[in-house]
C-alpha cells in the first residue's frame, strides 16, 4: 500500500452529469415510480371522470339515477347493518378466542391456529357455497338434522340479512383472531405484573390494564373488519340476491349486468362505496400512527404464567371445539361430500353409499377447467413476481433514499387498500374501455393489471418490513468496497430481502388465485379463471363438479399455505 494513485479528477463534464442522471439506479427507480403511480391513480382518476363528467360538464346525474332506482336508504342501510353485524360477530368470536389461547390454560390451542388458516385455505366463494349446503332452508343439513328437530319445523334461513351476517362474520373471525393474538402477545407482561404488585386483584388488572392496552388493536381490527365486510362480494351476491337483500357491491354488479350496462350508475355507486371504505382506511392509518407511541412490544421473550381458568376451563374448551367444528369441519366435510355425488342432495344413508369420483373425472377432463386453471396459475405467478420485484425497489426508495416525495410513493402503494375489488374492477373497466390505443379489454391482461393493483399494498408491506430489517451499513459497506448501486442492490440487498420477498410472493399467489370481486367485472367469456369457473358452475347448478374443483383447489392452497407458514416462521405472515 502506501502510494496513492496519482489521478487528478477534472471537474464533472457535461456528459458526465448526463451519464450520472441516466444511471441504472435512476432509471430503475423512475420505472418503478411511474408504475406505482399508474397502477394506483389511473383507475381512480377514470372512475371520478366517468362518474362526474358527462359531455364535458360536471354532473351528479348518475347519482340521482342510481339512488332513485333502488332507493338509497334501503340499500345503504342493508350495507351498514351487514357490515356492522358481521364485524360485531367476528370481533366477539375472534377476541374471545385470542384471549383464551394466549392468556389462559385452555387446551387444544393448536386447533385454533389451524382454524385461523381457514380464510386463506377456503376461498370466500367456496365458503359461502358450503354454507348454502349447510344452512339453506330446503337442503341445508344443519337445518334438516339440528335446527328443525330442535325448533319443531322452523329453520335458519341463510338467504337473509342475519344469514349473511353469520356467514361473513364466521369468515372474518379468524382474521380478528390473528390480529388480537398478535396484540395480546406483544403486550409487555411486566405492565400487568406491576399492577398485580400494586395490589390490584386479577379482574381489576384485566379491566384497568389489559383491556386499555389492547384497545388500539381492537379499534384497528374493528375498522379493518367493517371495510372488509363493506367490500365483500361473495356473500351478498350468493346469499343476498336470493333473498332480495341488496348492498352496494351486489348492486354495482347488477347494474353492470343489465343490458345495456349502466356504467354511470356503477360509477356513482362505486364512488359512494369508495368514500365509505376510504374513511375506514383513513381512520385506521391515523390510529396506527397514534398507537405507535403506545407500543407495548418489548424484546423480552418472557411469557407470563397463563391465567388458571379453574371451573371455566370446561365451557372454554367446549367453545373452542364447537367453533372448530362450525368453522372448519362442517364446511370442508360438506364440500368433500358434495364432490362425491352425481347429483347434489343432502346426505342420507342412500347417498352416502353411492359415492363416486365421477365429478373429479368430469373436472379433469373438461377443457374449460384446464384453461381456467392454467389462466389462474399464470396470472398468479405473473402478478406475484411482478409485484415483488417492483415493490423491492419501491421499498428501497422509501426506506433508504431521501428522495423528495418518497412518502407519496409509500402512500400510493398502499392506496389500493381502500379500494374495494369491485370498485377497482369498475375503474379498470372505464380505463380500458376509454383509453385509446390500449387494447387490454377482453384479454387476460386486464386481470393482470387488476391483480397488480389489488395486491401491490401487500407486496409493499412485505418488502418494507424486510427492508427495515436490513441495516443501512450492510449497503454502505458494499459501497465503500467499491460496488456501484446496481451491484450492491443485486448482490447485497436482494439476497437479504429474499425471505421476505418469497413470503410475499406466495401470499400474493394464494390470494390472487381466489380473487373474485374485480375478476367478475373484468373477465371475458372463454378466458375464465378458477374463481369465475366456480361462480359459473354455481349459476348452472353443477354442484358436484364445483365441489370437486373446490376440493382440489383447497388441497393446492393447503400446500401453498404450509410453505408460506414455514417461511413465515422467520418472516411473519400477516393479515389473511
Amino acid at each position: 500500500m502506501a502510494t496513492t494513485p496519482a489521478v487528478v479528477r477534472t471537474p464533472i463534464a457535461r456528459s458526465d452529469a448526463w451519464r450520472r442522471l441516466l444511471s441504472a439506479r435512476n432509471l430503475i427507480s423512475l420505472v418503478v415510480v411511474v408504475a406505482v403511480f399508474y397502477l394506483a391513480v389511473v383507475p381512480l382518476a377514470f372512475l371520478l371522470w366517468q362518474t362526474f363528467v358527462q359531455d364535458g360538464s360536471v354532473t351528479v346525474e348518475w347519482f340521482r339515477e342510481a339512488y332513485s332506482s333502488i332507493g338509497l336508504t334501503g340499500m345503504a342501510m342493508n350495507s351498514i347493518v351487514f357490515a356492522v353485524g358481521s364485524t360485531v360477530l367476528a370481533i366477539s368470536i375472534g377476541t374471545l378466542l385470542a384471549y383464551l389461547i394466549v392468556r389462559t390454560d385452555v387446551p387444544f390451542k393448536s386447533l385454533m391456529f389451524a382454524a385461523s388458516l381457514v380464510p386463506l385455505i377456503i376461498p370466500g366463494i367456496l365458503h359461502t357455497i358450503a354454507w348454502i349446503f349447510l344452512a339453506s332452508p330446503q337442503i341445508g343439513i344443519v337445518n334438516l338434522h339440528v335446527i328443525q328437530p330442535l325448533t319443531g319445523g322452523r329453520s335458519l334461513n341463510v338467504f337473509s340479512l342475519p344469514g349473511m351476517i353469520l356467514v361473513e362474520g364466521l369468515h372474518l373471525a379468524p382474521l380478528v383472531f390473528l390480529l388480537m393474538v398478535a396484540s395480546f402477545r406483544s403486550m409487555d407482561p411486566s405492565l400487568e405484573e406491576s399492577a398485580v404488585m400494586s395490589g390490584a386483584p386479577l379482574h381489576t388488572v384485566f379491566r384497568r390494564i389489559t383491556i386499555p392496552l389492547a384497545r388500539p388493536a381492537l379499534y384497528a381490527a374493528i375498522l379493518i373488519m367493517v371495510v372488509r365486510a363493506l367490500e365483500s362480494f361473495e356473500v351478498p351476491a350468493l346469499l343476498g340476491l336470493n333473498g332480495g337483500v341488496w348492498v352496494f357491491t351486489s348492486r354495482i354488479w347488477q347494474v353492470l349486468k343489465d343490458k345495456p350496462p349502466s356504467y354511470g350508475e356503477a360509477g356513482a355507486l362505486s364512488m359512494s362505496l369508495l368514500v365509505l371504505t376510504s374513511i375506514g382506511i383513513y381512520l385506521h392509518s391515523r390510529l396506527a400512527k397514534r398507537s405507535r407511541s403506545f407500543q407495548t412490544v418489548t424484546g423480552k421473550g418472557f411469557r407470563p404464567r397463563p391465567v388458571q381458568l379453574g371451573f371455566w376451563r370446561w365451557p372454554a374448551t367446549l367453545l373452542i371445539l364447537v367453533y372448530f367444528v362450525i368453522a372448519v369441519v362442517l364446511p370442508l366435510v360438506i364440500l368433500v361430500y358434495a364432490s362425491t355425488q352425481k347429483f347434489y342432495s343432502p346426505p342420507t344413508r342412500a347417498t352416502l353409499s353411492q359415492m363416486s369420483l365421477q365429478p373429479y373425472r368430469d373436472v379433469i377432463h373438461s377443457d374449460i377447467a384446464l384453461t381456467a386453471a392454467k389462466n389462474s396459475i399464470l396470472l398468479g405467478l405473473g402478478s406475484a413476481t411482478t409485484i415483488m420485484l417492483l415493490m423491492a425497489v419501491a421499498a428501497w426508495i422509501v426506506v433508504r433514499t431521501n428522495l423528495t416525495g418518497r412518502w407519496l410513493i409509500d402512500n400510493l402503494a398502499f392506496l389500493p387498500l381502500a379500494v374495494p375489488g369491485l370498485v377497482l374492477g369498475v375503474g379498470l373497466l372505464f380505463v380500458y374501455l376509454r383509453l385509446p390505443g390500449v387494447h387490454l379489454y377482453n384479454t387476460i391482461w386486464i386481470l393482470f393489471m387488476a391483480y397488480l393493483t389489488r395486491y401491490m399494498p401487500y407486496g409493499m408491506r412485505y418488502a418494507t418490513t424486510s427492508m427495515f430489517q436490513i441495516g443501512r451499513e450492510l449497503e454502505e459497506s458494499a459501497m465503500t468496497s467499491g460496488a456501484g448501486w446496481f451491484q450492491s442492490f443485486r448482490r447485497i440487498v436482494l439476497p437479504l430481502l429474499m425471505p421476505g420477498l418469497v413470503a410475499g410472493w406466495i401470499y400474493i399467489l394464494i390470494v390472487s388465485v381466489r380473487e373474485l370481486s374485480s375478476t367478475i367485472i373484468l373477465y371475458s367469456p372463454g378466458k375464465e379463471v378458477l374463481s369465475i369457473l366456480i361462480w359459473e358452475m354455481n349459476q348452472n347448478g353443477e354442484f358436484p363438479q364445483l365441489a370437486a374443483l373446490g376440493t382440489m383447489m383447497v388441497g393446492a392452497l393447503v400446500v401453498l399455505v404450509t410453505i408460506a407458514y414455514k417461511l413465515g416462521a422467520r418472516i411473519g405472515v400477516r393479515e389473511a
Partner: protein
Amino acid sequence: MLNITSLVKSFDASRGEKRKRVFAVEDVSLEVKEGELFTLLGPSGCGKTTSLRCIAGLESPDSGEIAVGDRVFFSSERNIRVPASERGLGMVFQSYAIWPHMNVFKNVAFPLEVLRRRKRPSRKQIQERVERTLGIVQLDHLASRQATDLSGGQQQRLALARALVMEPPLMLLDEPLSNLDAKLRDEMRFELKRLQRELGVTAVYVTHDQVEALAMSNRVAVMREGKIEQVGTPREVYEQPASRFVADFIGTSNFIDGSIEAREGSVYTVRTQDGVLRVPSEAEFAVGAPVVVAARPEHIEIKPGEDGVGPNLWNGRVEARAFLGEVVDHVVSVGSREIRTRCNSKVSIPAPTAVTLTFHEEAFSLIPAGE
C-alpha cells in the same frame, strides 16, 4: 495524505426545533500524515462520525474540500463529488456490517469481485489475496465458515480484512471496538494498533472512548459540537488541554477558577478563592486575567494532618473515599470547593480526617476562563 479544508455538513432540524438546520460539522480542517493513526474523539453528536462519513463519501458535505494524496474526492468549489464506490477507501463500521448471506471468504472477496473488469484480478489472484488478508487477521482457518457463525471478535477481524483487502490508501474506522466486551476490547486495541503499524496503513479512527484514543493514536483531534477543539499527540491533549472541555472530556480534572497575580518566566502565580497555585504554562496570560486551572487528580498528593499552607499546599477535610481496585479516590473539601484526588490503593484515609493536599506541577494546565 488526507487533507480536509473547511468542511461543512448540515442536516434538516427535526420538527419542533428552533433552528432550521443543524450543523453536524462546522468548518473542520485537518491534515492526516502518511502512516499515521489519526483519531477523531468526542462525545456523541460532536460530528466525528459525520466527518468520517463525508470522507468515505457516504454523506455529501455542504461545502469544503476533501483530498486523499493528490486525488480530490470532494470539492464544492470545483463541483467534484466522487461516489463512495469509486474512492477506493477501506471502511470498518461500528456494527461491522458483515454480509450475513455470504461466508467469510466471500465477504472478503467482494471488494475485489466488484472491481471494473479492467482492474479486476483473476480468480486465482483473488483467491491468493483473500487468503493472504485472512492470514493477516488470523482468520484463514475459518474461510469457509458462514459469516454469521463468527464470534464478535472474529467478526471484527473479518470487517478489518474486508477493508484491507483492497490495500486502500486510507482506512476509516468508525468506533470499531465499541461492540466488544471490555476484555476483548483491550486485546483488540493492541492488535489493531500493531496491524496498522506493521502494514503502514494510514487510518482515521473515530471513537468516544478517551482511553482508546490515547492508547492507539499518533494524533488526536478532540471535537465538540461540529468543531475541532484541539489537535495534538495523546500526551499533548492530556497534559496541555487547550480548553476546559478538552480537560474535562479526557481524563478527570479539578477545575479551579482564579486570576493571574504574577508571572515569573513561564510560571504563573494564580490567586483563587481558597489559596494560591503556582502553575507553569507555555501560554501567554496578562496579569489580572481570569483563568481556570485544571488539576489532574493523580498528581495531587494527600497526607493526613494539617502541614501549614502555601502555594500548591492546601488544607482540607476528607468528605468521601472510593476504593476502585487499582487506585483510591478521595473527595476533599477545601473552603467552598471539593477537590478530587487519586492515589495508589495503599493510601486510604477515612472521612472526616483533616488532610494536606500537595499539588505537583505536572497536575496543572492553565486555560483561559470562559471556555
